[in-house]
Structures are given as C-alpha cells and as structure tokens.
C-alpha cells in the first residue's frame, strides 16, 4: 500500500501518461482510453497483489476524489460552453422536440426496465434512467466533422438536439435527488442572481485581463463554479448542474475568446480529467461485468430501443427522410461523459439510510453500457445510414 501522496500521484499520472500515448497511437479518444486503463489497473493491481499475499489496490484518496470531481465539473462546464447559441436559436423548435424526447424516452424506458425487470431499487433505477438517457455531443461532433455534416443544417440540428438532451440529464440529476430545503432555496436564489450577470461580468474581465499570465478571467469562472457547486452540493443536488448552465450562459462570450478556452482545456485535460476518467474506470469490477453480461446487454438494448421510440418518429415529424431519421436516432443513442458522470453520482451519493444510490455492480454495468453506447450505434450509423454527402475540403489550394 502506497502512503506517500507523491508516489500515489506518480502512479496515477503514470497511468494517465500511458493512456495518452495509447490514445495518440490508436486514434481513440484519451477519455475512453483512460477509462479502459483505469479498468485494467483497478482490477489488475489487486490481482497481482494477491499473488504476493499483499493487499494492493489503485489508491483513491480524498484529494484524488476532489481532483476527479473538479474534472467532472469543468468537463460539464466546457460541454455547456461549447454550444453555439445561434444554432440553438435557429433550430430551437426541432432541436427542443428531438432533444427532449431523446432524453425522456430512454429515461423512462431504462428506469422501468431496471425497476421491473432487474428489480433494482427505485433510486438505482432512476440513476440508470438518467445515466442512459444521455447523448454524447462529443462523439456526435466527431462523426459530423468526419462526414462534413457539421457544416450543414442537418448536422447543426442534431448537435443542438444533443445539447438539449444533456440539459435534460443534468436537470434530472440536479433536481431528482436534491433536498428541498433552505440550502436549495439559497442555491436557486444565488443562481438567479449570478447567471444573468455572468456573461457581462465575464466579458468585462476578458476585455480587461485576457492575456495576463495570472488568468483573472479563468479564476472568476472558477469562483462562480465553486460557489454555485458548493451550494448545490449542500442541497444534496449535483455541482454539474450549475456548471453546465453557467457554461451555456457564457458560451456566447467565450466563443470569441478561443485563447482563454484553450487555456482552460489544457489545465483540464492535463491535470484534472485523467483523475476523473481513470477513477471512473478503476471503480468498474471485472467480475461484475462477467457476471452481469446479460444485464449489460438488456440495458443497452433498452436504451437504443427507447431512443428509437422517441427520436425516430419525432425526426420524421420534422420531415427528415428514413435514412436521415435513422442516422439521427443512432447518433443520439450514443453516450459517454455525462453517462459516466451520472453513474458516478449514483455511487457517491447516499440515501436517508446511508446506502449509496447504486452499488458497485450496478455502477459497473451502467458504465459499460455507456461505453458500448458510444461505440455500437456510431459504427452502425456510419456503416449503413450515413446520409449522402460530398467530400468537403478544409483548406489547401485544391483545384
């Protein structure tokens, strides 16, 4: 067992370094590889320890938990800040409709399947519903870039719909398990004061301080995130809720300050998200995956089927043809970051009796389904339902 925080940090950063190298080599995102490295390390270290009759494990300490949670909050903030407000405004009707059913149908479907078929507790079923209602904006965005659809109306509409789905997820996570007490009232009150002023205040800081090495504008954003996150946590809500909404609120300002966003990303990817994704993987039990293979398959099928029930007819309603409707439905069936955040929330939060909302086996099943949903629907969509398009050049002097 490692005791020195430096050695524990060295082990975690060593794993993060390994994940980065693998990610660059194989062209798969560092987030996904960090989860996989976390799974391997989390399960292999105890196994190797048992061979030498010692109790070894990938240590999680309070400070690692803090860095991981901080990473999740900033990931959510960046996810909100990456939206293009003009696109959402332009396509608000179909994106609201498609995004809302894309959240609601799997939320209800998975919750019902977990409760009635798997006999999970009501709270565990709700966590399952939230975790599998998500859509991965990032996975969809990468597919759009590859196909050039990000420059077309259909691509922009799908992306805007994904943001609406994720908003549904963070709202559900923030509202369903909150204590309805004075802390919640205070959180809502402070949010009501900060949110409307956040864009103007951020803009003023950016104008005055952008480029300073001490980065006052980033510290201002962190201050708002910590105050709102702290109040949300005190109300037993989730800090990612205000983080996502604050991101949405300042998105219009930040899109003109790419250097600042770049600096935030560098800090997040180098220092914080490795702890979050490695931890998300390390908490997965290989035994639970092996024993729960059928549960994983069932939940994946229910998630994708529910997305079909909700998204496909809605897409048709907005005059998309069969192929585009199928493509939209499959892409909106993807999930990754918000799914793992929801599952982690379930594992780290406790009910009135002091039990965590989901147990380790349920967490393992949910995260594996989330990862599978990032890969399987994307492959099917790209292989069989990609809308016809011409190659779009990025730049160069093509003739």
């Amino acid at each position, binding site marked *: 067992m490692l005791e020195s925080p430096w050695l524990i940090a060295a082990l975690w950063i060593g794993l993060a370094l390994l994940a980065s190298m693998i990610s660059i080599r194989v*062209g798969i995102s560092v987030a*996904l590889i960090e989860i996989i490295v976390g799974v391997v390390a989390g399960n292999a270290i105890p196994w190797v320890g048992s061979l030498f009759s010692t109790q070894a494990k990938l240590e999680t300490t309070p400070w690692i938990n803090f860095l991981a949670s901080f990473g999740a909050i900033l*990931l959510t903030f960046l996810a909100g800040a*990456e939206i293009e407000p003009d696109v959402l405004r332009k396509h608000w009707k179909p994106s609201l409709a498609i995004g809302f059913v894309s959240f609601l149908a799997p939320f209800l479907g998975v919750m019902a399947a977990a409760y009635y078929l798997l006999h999970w507790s009501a709270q565990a079923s709700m966590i399952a519903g939230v975790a599998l209602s998500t859509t991965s904006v*990032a996975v969809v965005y990468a597919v759009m870039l590859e196909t050039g659809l990000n420059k077309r109306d259909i691509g922009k509409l799908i992306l805007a719909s994904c943001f609406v789905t994720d908003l549904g997820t963070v709202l559900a996570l923030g509202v369903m398990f909150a204590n309805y007490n004075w802390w919640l009232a205070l959180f809502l009150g402070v949010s009501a004061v900060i949110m409307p002023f956040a864009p103007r205040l951020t803009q003023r800081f950016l104008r005055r301080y952008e480029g300073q090495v001490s980065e006052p504008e980033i510290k201002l954003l962190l201050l708002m995130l910590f105050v709102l996150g702290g109040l949300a946590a005190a109300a037993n809500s989730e800090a990612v809720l205000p983080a996502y909404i604050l991101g949405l609120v300042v998105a219009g300002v930040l899109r003109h300050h790419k250097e600042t966003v770049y600096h935030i990303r560098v800090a997040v*990817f180098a220092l914080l998200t490795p702890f979050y994704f490695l931890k998300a993987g390390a908490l997965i039990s290989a035994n639970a995956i092996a024993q729960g293979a059928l549960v994983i398959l069932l939940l994946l099928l229910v998630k994708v089927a529910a997305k079909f029930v909700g998204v496909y007819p809605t897409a048709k309603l907005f005059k998309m043809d069969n192929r585009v409707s199928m493509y939209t439905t499959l892409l909106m069936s993807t999930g990754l970051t918000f799914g793992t955040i929801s599952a982690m929330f379930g594992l780290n939060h406790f009910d009135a009796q002091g039990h965590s909302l989901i147990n380790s086996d349920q967490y393992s099943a949910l995260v594996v389904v989330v990862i599978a949903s990032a890969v399987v629907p994307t492959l099917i969509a790209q292989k069989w339902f990609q809308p016809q398009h011409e190659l779009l050049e990025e*730049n160069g002097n*093509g003739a």
Partner: protein
Amino acid sequence: MVHKKILHGLDGSKGSFNALEEAIELAKRYGAELHTVSVEEVPHYPGTVGEVIEAKHAANGKFGQAMQQAKDMAKQAGIDLHCHVFTGHEVKTIVEFVKEKGFDLLVIGFMGHSALYDRLMGSTCQGLARLAPCAVLVVK
C-alpha cells in the same frame, strides 16, 4: 502506362516526402497534374468536443507546414501542385477522393509500424493498396 492525374498522400512524415519526390518526377515525365491529399484524423469516441477541436488544430498546424514544404519542392521542379485537406478516416477519405476526381495513380510513402500494430490496427498503406481504384505506388 501513361499517368495523367497523380495524387500523392501527404502526412508530413519523412516517408511521405520521399514519395513526393517520386511523384514530382513522374508528373514531370508524363506531364501529369499533381495533387496532394492530407487527411486530419480526429480522435474516435471523444469525451469532449474540446478534445476534437484541439486535435484538429494540431493537425491543421502540422499539415500547413507540410503543404508549404511540398509546394516549395514542386515549385523548384517547375510543377504546379494542388493541395487538399479533409477530415476523416485516412483510407476511406483518400479512396473516395480518388474516385471522385478520377486520379489514375496514387503515390504514398511507406510508414513502418510494428507487425503487432499493423495486425491490430491495420496499415494505411495496405488499406490504400487494397481499396484504391487506381494504380498505387508505395515508396520506401
């Protein structure tokens, strides 16, 4: 066989510049049109949009430099070079581009990976040689 429209795969590596020298020679010999294609690969299954944007930025910078160097080489040889950049899967995008523009020769550099890597991930050279609908020259 006379080639009239040659496409060269430019990824900024030493191997791809070796192949470019060969492609320039062939273009001069046959009086052919010479194009380069570069494909930015974004990470698959990303966790955040930012991850994709940063990967794309990095690729843009790398290919910008490579294209300038390629144009200088072609200019010295008196050849007019047309450069194209796309985002997507390398093999799939290049094959589609060859079909779309009707190139009759694809010139690519050999990129040596380990046997294990090639077995697991598949090699770009092999993929292009197998799928491109035209003659393919792999320069070592």
